[in-house]
C-alpha cells in the first residue's frame, strides 16, 4: 500500500465507505454477499487509514480536495496527527464491529438489516470526513451528516421508545449544533477571517478574553456529541439502538467525534496558549468535572447494563474535555490517548453487553449472577474493559489518565487532579460490582434443571466472541505498545 501517494490514500479513505453504502443495497436479497460488502469495505478502509500512518509519522500532512463553496468556506481535507488517530480508531473498530454485527443482527433476527448496514457505512464516511477535515466548515458538514445518518439507527426498532429516542437524539444533536455551534463558527469566521485548523490557533489576539470565553461556551455546548451535562441525555436515550450501534457509534464514532471536535477547536482554533493566557477556559474544568462526577453517580444507580455503560461514557467523555481544558500540552496528549483508550475499552464493554443480550436475553445487571461461568470469554473481556475504564494497568485506560494527571500536576492545577482521583473511585464503584455479580454470585436456582430452555445458554455466536476478544486484547495491547499512538498524540501538540 505504501506504493500509493498519501494524497490518494486520503481520497480513498473518503470514498470507500460511501462506495460501500452505495453497493450494499444492491445485495438486499443476498445477506451473505451484503455482509461481505460491508466486511470488504471496512477492511479496505482500515487498510487505507493504516497506510497513512507511516506518512504522517514521517511528517507528511497529505491533503485532498479543496473546493471553495463560497469565499471563506472551503470543503477541504488534510490529515494531521490527531485526525489520523481518530480515523485509525474508528476504521479499525468498524472492521471488528462489522464482524460482531453479523453475529448480533442475525442472532437477534433484527428487521431492516440492509438499511442498517447502509446507515452504518454512511456514518463511517462521515467519521472519516470529521477526522480529516481541514477546516471547521468541512468538519461541521460531516458532523451533521453523522447525526443524520445515525438517527435511523437509533430509531431502528421503530417502536414508541425508539422513535422517542430518535426525536431526542435529533433535537439535541441538531439543535445544539445549529443554535450554538453554527453561530460559533460564523462568529469565528467574522473574527478571524478563516476557519482553517492551524497549529497554535487562529484566534490569538483577535478577541477579548470575554469573547473567547463566550465562544468557548458556544463550542463546548454546541458540540452536543461530547455530551457535556446538561446536554447529555440524548446518549442514554440512544441506547435503545441495536448494540453494535451503541458499541461503535455511541461509544466510539459519534461521541468521539464530539470530544475530538472540542479538542481540535481548543488546540487548532483557539490555541492552547491563547486560551491559557486569556484564562477563558477555566470554567470548562468545572463543567467537565461536574459532568464527570455527576454522570458517575447516575451510573452507580442504573441497573440496566447499557444505561450504566452510557452514563459511564458521558463521564469518560468529560475526561477528554477536562484534559483539554487543563490547557497543558501534556494533558492534551492525555486527551488524545484517552480517545483511543476509551474507544477500545468501551466498545469491549458494549460488545459484552450485546453478547449477553444475544445469548441470555438479559439486560439488567441484577440478572447477571453467575453468568461469568456460562460466558467466560464475554465476561473476561468485560473485566478487562472495566479495568481499563477504572484506569488501572495493564490496560490502555491507565495511559490517558497518567498524562492528564501529569499535565495537571505540572501546571499546578489540583482541582482536576482531585476530580480524576474521585472519579476513578466512582468508576471502580460501579464496575467492580458487575464483575463480582457475574463471577462470584451463584446463579439463582429458581428454575429446575431443564425447565427453562432460555435459561440454559452458553457463549454467544462465534463472530461476537471473536470481536470482543479482539477488542479486549487491543485494550491490553495498547498499554503494552503505545508508541505509535503516543507519537501521533505528541505530534499534535508539537506542531
Amino acid at each position, binding site marked *: 500500500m505504501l506504493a500509493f501517494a498519501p494524497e490518494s490514500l486520503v481520497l480513498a479513505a473518503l470514498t470507500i465507505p460511501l462506495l460501500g453504502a452505495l453497493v450494499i443495497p444492491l445485495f438486499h436479497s443476498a445477506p451473505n454477499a451484503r455482509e461481505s460488502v460491508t466486511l470488504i469495505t471496512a477492511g479496505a478502509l482500515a487498510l487505507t487509514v493504516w497506510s497513512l500512518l507511516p506518512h504522517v509519522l514521517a511528517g507528511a500532512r497529505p491533503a485532498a480536495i479543496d473546493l471553495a*463553496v463560497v469565499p471563506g468556506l472551503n*470543503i477541504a481535507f488534510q490529515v494531521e496527527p490527531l485526525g489520523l488517530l481518530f480515523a485509525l480508531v474508528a476504521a479499525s473498530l468498524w472492521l471488528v464491529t462489522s464482524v460482531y454485527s453479523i453475529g448480533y443482527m442475525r442472532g437477534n433476527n433484527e428487521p431492516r438489516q440492509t438499511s442498517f448496514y447502509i446507515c452504518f457505512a454512511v456514518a463511517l464516511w462521515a467519521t472519516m470526513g470529521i477526522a480529516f477535515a481541514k477546516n471547521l466548515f468541512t468538519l461541521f458538514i460531516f458532523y451533521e451528516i453523522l447525526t443524520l445518518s445515525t438517527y435511523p439507527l437509533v430509531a431502528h426498532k421503530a417502536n414508541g421508545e425508539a422513535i422517542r429516542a430518535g*426525536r431526542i437524539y*435529533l433535537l439535541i444533536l441538531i439543535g445544539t449544533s445549529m*443554535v450554538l455551534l453554527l*453561530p460559533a463558527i*460564523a462568529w469565528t469566521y467574522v473574527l478571524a477571517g478563516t476557519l482553517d485548523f492551524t497549529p497554535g490557533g487562529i484566534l490569538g489576539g483577535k478577541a477579548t478574553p470575554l469573547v473567547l470565553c463566550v465562544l468557548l461556551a458556544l463550542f463546548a455546548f454546541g458540540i452536543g456529541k461530547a455530551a457535556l451535562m446538561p446536554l447529555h441525555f440524548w446518549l442514554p436515550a440512544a441506547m435503545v439502538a441495536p448494540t453494535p450501534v451503541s458499541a461503535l457509534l455511541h461509544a466510539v464514532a459519534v461521541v468521539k467525534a464530539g470530544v475530538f471536535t472540542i479538542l481540535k477547536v481548543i488546540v487548532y482554533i483557539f490555541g492552547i496558549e491563547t486560551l491559557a493566557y486569556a484564562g477563558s477556559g477555566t470554567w470548562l474544568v468545572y463543567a467537565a468535572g461536574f459532568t464527570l462526577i455527576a454522570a458517575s453517580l447516575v451510573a452507580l444507580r442504573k441497573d440496566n447494563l447499557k444505561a450504566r455503560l452510557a452514563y459511564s461514557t458521558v463521564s469518560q467523555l468529560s475526561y477528554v474535555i477536562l484534559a483539554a481544558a487543563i490547557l497543558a500540552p501534556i494533558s492534551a496528549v492525555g486527551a488524545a490517548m484517552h480517545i483511543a483508550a476509551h474507544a477500545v475499552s468501551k466498545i469491549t464493554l458494549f460488545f459484552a453487553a450485546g453478547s449477553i443480550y444475544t445469548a441470555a436475553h438479559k439486560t439488567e445487571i441484577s440478572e447477571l449472577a453467575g453468568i461469568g461461568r456460562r460466558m467466560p470469554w464475554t465476561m473476561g473481556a468485560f473485566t478487562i474493559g472495566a479495568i481499563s475504564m477504572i484506569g488501572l494497568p495493564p490496560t490502555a485506560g491507565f495511559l490517558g489518565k497518567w498524562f492528564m494527571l501529569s499535565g495537571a500536576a505540572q501546571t499546578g492545577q489540583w482541582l482536576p487532579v482531585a476530580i480524576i482521583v474521585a472519579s476513578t473511585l466512582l468508576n471502580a464503584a460501579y464496575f467492580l460490582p458487575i464483575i463480582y455479580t457475574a463471577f462470584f454470585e451463584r446463579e439463582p436456582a429458581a428454575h429446575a434443571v431443564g425447565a427453562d430452555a432460555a435459561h440454559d445458554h452458553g457463549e454467544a455466536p462465534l463472530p461476537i466472541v471473536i470481536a470482543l476478544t479482539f477488542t479486549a486484547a487491543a485494550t491490553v495491547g495498547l498499554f503494552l505498545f503505545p508508541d505509535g499512538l503516543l507519537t501521533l498524540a505528541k505530534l499534535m501538540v508539537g506542531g
Partner: protein
Amino acid sequence: MSALTAQLPGLQVVIPLLGAVVAAFIRRGTIAWGWATLITAMTPIVAFALLIQVWTGGPISYHMGGWPPPIGIEYRVDLLNAFVLVLVSLVSAIMMPYARRSVAHEIDGDKQAWFYCMYLLCLTGLLGITITGDAFNAFVFMEISSLSSYVLIAMGRDRRALVAAYQYLIIGTIGATFYVVGVGLLYLVTGSLNFADIALRLGEASAVYPRPVLAGLAFLFVGISLKLALFPLHVWLPNAYAYAPSFATAFLAATATKVAIYLLLRVIFSIYGVALDLKTLPVSAVLYPLSIAAMFIASILAVYETNLKRMLAYSSVAQIGYITLGIALMNQAGLTGGIVHLFNHALIKGALFLALGAILYRAGTIKLEQLGGVGRTMPLTCAAFVVAGMSLMGVPGTAGFISKYYLIVGALNAGMWPIAFLIVASSLIALVYIGRAVEVAYFRPVSSAVAHAKDPPLLMLVPLLVLAFASVYFGIDTELSAGVAGRVAETLLSGLKVGGAN
C-alpha cells in the same frame, strides 16, 4: 449584436404570451401540455442569454415598440432581474414535464388545455413583472399573473379550492390596488412611471412633498407585501397552496412569491434607496419584527398542521421571513443571504411540493396520519422529500445552509447577534415539522392508503429528483446562486444614496 440578441428582452415576454394565445385554441390536454412545455423550455434559454449579456456587458435597456423612455415602456435588465428571470424560467421549465400526469390526474379532461393556457399567462405575467422597468407596466403584468393564478388555484379538485381562490382574489386585488395607489402617488410627485426616472426625480420631489413620497412607499410596501405573503399579510397563502392542483402549488410557490420579493427589492433599493437615505425610512424597522414573527409563528403553525401541503405553505411564509430579514439587514452578507435564499428556497419548495404531488398522485392523500410507511413504498419520492427537507432546515452542505450562513454573517456584521440566534433557533422548528413527516414516512407501519403506492412515472419523478438534487448541489457549487446574488447585493448597495457621515 445580432438582430435576435437585441430583441431578447422582448422575446422573454412575447414568447410565453403568444404561447398562451395559441394554447387557448388547443382542446386536447396532452397537446396543450406539449405546447406549454415547448414554450416554457424556450424561456430559460432567453433568460440565460440575458444573464450572460448583463454579466459581461452591464444593464440592457430595451425600448418596447421603439418608444424611448420615460414616455415609452422600457424593459430594463440588470443583474438582479436577470437572476430572477433565470430562476423563474428555469424552475418552470424543470417542472413542466411533471405537469402532464399530475394535471391529468387532478383536473377534468376538458379543462386541462385551459389550465396550460392559464399557466402560460401566469408565467408571462411573472416574467413581465421581472423584466419591465416601468411601474405601471409592472402593475399590468401583476394583474395578468394574479388573475391567471386565481384560475389555476380554482381548478383544484377539492371544492374548497374555489373559496381559496376567491379569498386570494379579494386579497390579491386589494394588494394590487395598494400597489397602483402607490404608483399613482409617485406619478403625482415625479411625473414619471419609469423606475429609473422616478428614482432620478424622487429626491427633489421628496423635498417638496415629503408626505406623499412616504405614503407612496407605504402603499407600495403593503401592496407588494400582500403579494409576497409577508407575515401577517399571508392569510391567503395556506389555503391557496393547499387546495390548488399540485402542479400549480409547486409552480406558484417556487415563482410567484419570489417575483413579488423582487419587486420589493426594486422599490426599496432601486427607487427609494437611490433617491433617499434608506436609514431615514422605516423600512428595516418594519421588516425586522415582521420577518422574525414570520420565521417563528409561521414555523410553529407548520408544526401543528397535519395537511402536508398546508404545512409546507406555512413553511413558505416562514422562509419568506428569512428573505425579508436579509433585505432588512441591508449589508452585503445579509442582502446576499436574502437574495440567494430567494433562489434556494424556490428550488427547495419546488422539490417538496412536487414530492407531495407525487404522493397525492399515488396514494390519493397528503394527510400526515394516513401516510404511515410511505417511505418504504415510494422510496425515491420520499428520499427526494428528505433531501429537500434537509436543505430547508439548512443542513451544511445543502443550498439552505448557504442562505442561512450569509444571513448569520450578515447579522453578526451588523452587530446584531440576537438576530443570528433567532435565525438558527427558528430553523430548528423546521427540523421539527420535517422530522415529524420523516418519522411517519419511515418508522410507522405501512398504512392502507400507501400499501399499493409506488414511485410515480418517470415524467414526474425526474423533475422532482432534479430539483432535489439542485437543492443540494447549490450548497456546494454556489457560483450561479451565491456568486450572482453577491454581485447583485453589491450593485444594489453601491447604488444607494447614503446620507450623512455613513
